[in-house]
């Protein structure tokens, strides 16, 4: 009934789609850590611009899809910036320079700078997350985490199975709410819904674990049907991302 978002074939076979998800994850973390060292809004905006351009070209993500993923995050960023500028603590400081007067509201330079920095960072985080999500096939991610990142298999494949069950949980929740209504109970959100959902999730997990055990999961060393290998593209993405990060940080004043 409710399908999880699926990647288009062009996104999976694109250069970014073929890049090791582990590398993409490392790049995302390195960029976010790098941004933590600067307050200036320019570096995050440069990174956001680069990642969007990379998603459209190297990732072959359709502009509409990217926009649909980015719009809510960027609206939130704008909201955070406005909120920070209007209610920033620095506005109360009588010695701070005033940037603008909006009627009774006095917006100071430090409050404005802080708000822009925060908003820009949210924009960058949203862009990085959206492009990662739209160019990374879940199975590829788990294969990469297990084979290249040495993540324990039981955890990784359990997480993949749980990811596959998300649409099922959404359907279960809808059914539970409807079951309450048809029995004459008030609708809306009731704490008992969570109990019911938990019961269904545990029973589903139980059956899933039984099925996995019946097929010999965990009896010994596993082999791999889908082998993930390092390629030149991974090195290129890693080097390129490092250059972009240094260049972006250099724009800070």
């Amino acid at each position, binding site marked *: 009934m409710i399908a999880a978002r699926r990647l288009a074939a062009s996104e999976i076979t694109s250069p970014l789609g073929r890049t090791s998800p582990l590398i993409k994850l490392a790049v995302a973390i390195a960029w976010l850590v790098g941004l933590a060292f600067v307050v200036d809004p320019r570096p995050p905006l440069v990174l956001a611009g680069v990642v969007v351009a990379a998603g459209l070209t190297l990732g072959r993500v359709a502009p509409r899809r990217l926009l649909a993923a980015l719009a809510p995050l960027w609206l939130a960023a704008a909201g955070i910036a406005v909120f920070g500028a209007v209610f920033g603590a620095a506005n109360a400081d009588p010695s701070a320079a005033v940037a603008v007067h909006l009627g009774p509201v006095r917006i100071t330079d430090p409050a404005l700078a802080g708000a822009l920095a925060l908003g820009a960072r949210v924009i960058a985080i949203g862009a990085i997350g959206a492009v990662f999500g739209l160019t990374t096939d879940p199975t590829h991610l788990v294969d990469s985490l297990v084979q290249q990142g040495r993540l324990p298999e039981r955890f990784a494949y359990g997480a993949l199975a749980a990811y596959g069950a998300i649409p099922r949980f959404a359907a279960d929740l809808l059914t539970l709410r*409807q079951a309450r209504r048809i029995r004459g109970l008030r609708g809306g959100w009731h704490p008992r819904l969570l109990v019911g959902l938990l019961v269904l999730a545990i029973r589903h997990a139980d059956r899933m674990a039984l099925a996995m055990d019946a097929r010999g999961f965990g009896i010994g060393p596993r082999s791999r049907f889908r082998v993930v290998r390092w390629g030149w593209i991974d090195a290129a993405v890693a080097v390129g991302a490092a250059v972009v990060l240094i260049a972006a940080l250099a724009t800070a004043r």
Partner: protein
Amino acid sequence: MPREFAGTFAGRLEVGGLDVARSARGDVAARVGLVFQDPESQLVMDRVDDDVAFGLENRGWPVASMVPAVSTALTEVRLAGLEQRRPNTLSGGEQQRLALAGVLTADPGLLVLDEPTANLDPAGAAALFARLSAIRGARAATMVIVEHRVDLAWPLADRLLVLGRDGRPIDEGPRDEVVARSGPRLIEAGVWLPAEVEAGIRAANGLAGPHVPAPRRGVAAAARDLSCAAAVSFEWERGRRAVDGVDLAVGAGERVALLGRNGSGKSTLGRLLVGLLRPTAGSVTLAGHDPSRVPPADLARLAGYAFQDPEHQFLRARVRDEVELGLRPDERARVPELMDRLGLPLEGFAARSPYTLSGGEQRRLSLATILVRAPRLLVLDEPTFGQDRANHEALVAILRDRVDAGAALVAATHDLGFAAALLDRSVVLSDGCVVADEPTEGLVRVPERLAAYGLGPLS
């Protein structure tokens, strides 16, 4: 896998000379292929070919031998070409064949299938059994098939083991010998048998035929005013119509079967009729009101809806609390008699957890929670699922009483025997549209029409 379950295990269980209770799990898994009832909770991976390979990866097969084994297994279950698909986008029948492929790759000596067609429509069930029949011819594997409704499994079976309600074996042996030796006892114990087998037993033993009450006259078209759907459509996602421009009017005392393949929109239409979903186009009325806007307390007495999976509608931890939830004192007085008739007497069941009941008992409990309020419109999704014959007959009798008392009954079902016995009007859905609306009697007599609607033969 006795150790995987709570409870006590006694006796000895061997597979190919291996004592199951004392062996490593991997040794058992290598000999036995298991296919479970629920397709969704046995598919592990996010792609069809990965899922087939899962069991081989666990055994450490090299890639070079996995690739041809996966392709052979997918061809054997007729899923070749779907390698890249996500399992949760397949139909229930395809999912069960995928689960079968996943256990076939390892070439198990024993194949155990636990009610593999329980969640499938007749066409999906027939396709699964066609593959099982081919595998039975091509492979040396032993098959154990657990089934309530035996029509499809019957031709495949060399031997029968029949369990009574108390879990004790009634008889065991070559199929035709068991029928000749214990036929009347099987009928008496409420075991489902193919119609011609049962007729043979009755003839050979001088038993009367089953009691079938005469069908009642249908409701005149003018009186179809209790539940009305006018040009109703519903989209779960934009552009994907689960129900597409349906007109349907049902009157008090009417008995309607909603027929059609899995995914044809039966459950969605049922939920629209009782106001659990609001149509994206068109309108639904129930006794003159929009059911999606009726306050829940009033809705519960106007309409009842039984979900396809009974586990999804349980809201309390004990059977008694579950069935008495939200009842008025006068309704509460009806509980003991209803539970007796449904084979769930409170003396034995009141304190049990709904989740520990068998599938068939859960189904009857979920129906009890609806029937106890005597709503004017009953919409039931697969009400006969998992019922042995005696409970099936009891259920038909209870529903017949309700309809005679003036309730309208709409049942989404794959059980054509149930439809023919009780539901005199059939509405067939295909891709969310009504493609037939006519007396059930005429429809079930024409196998070609049933096949065209994906509705297997009447058994």
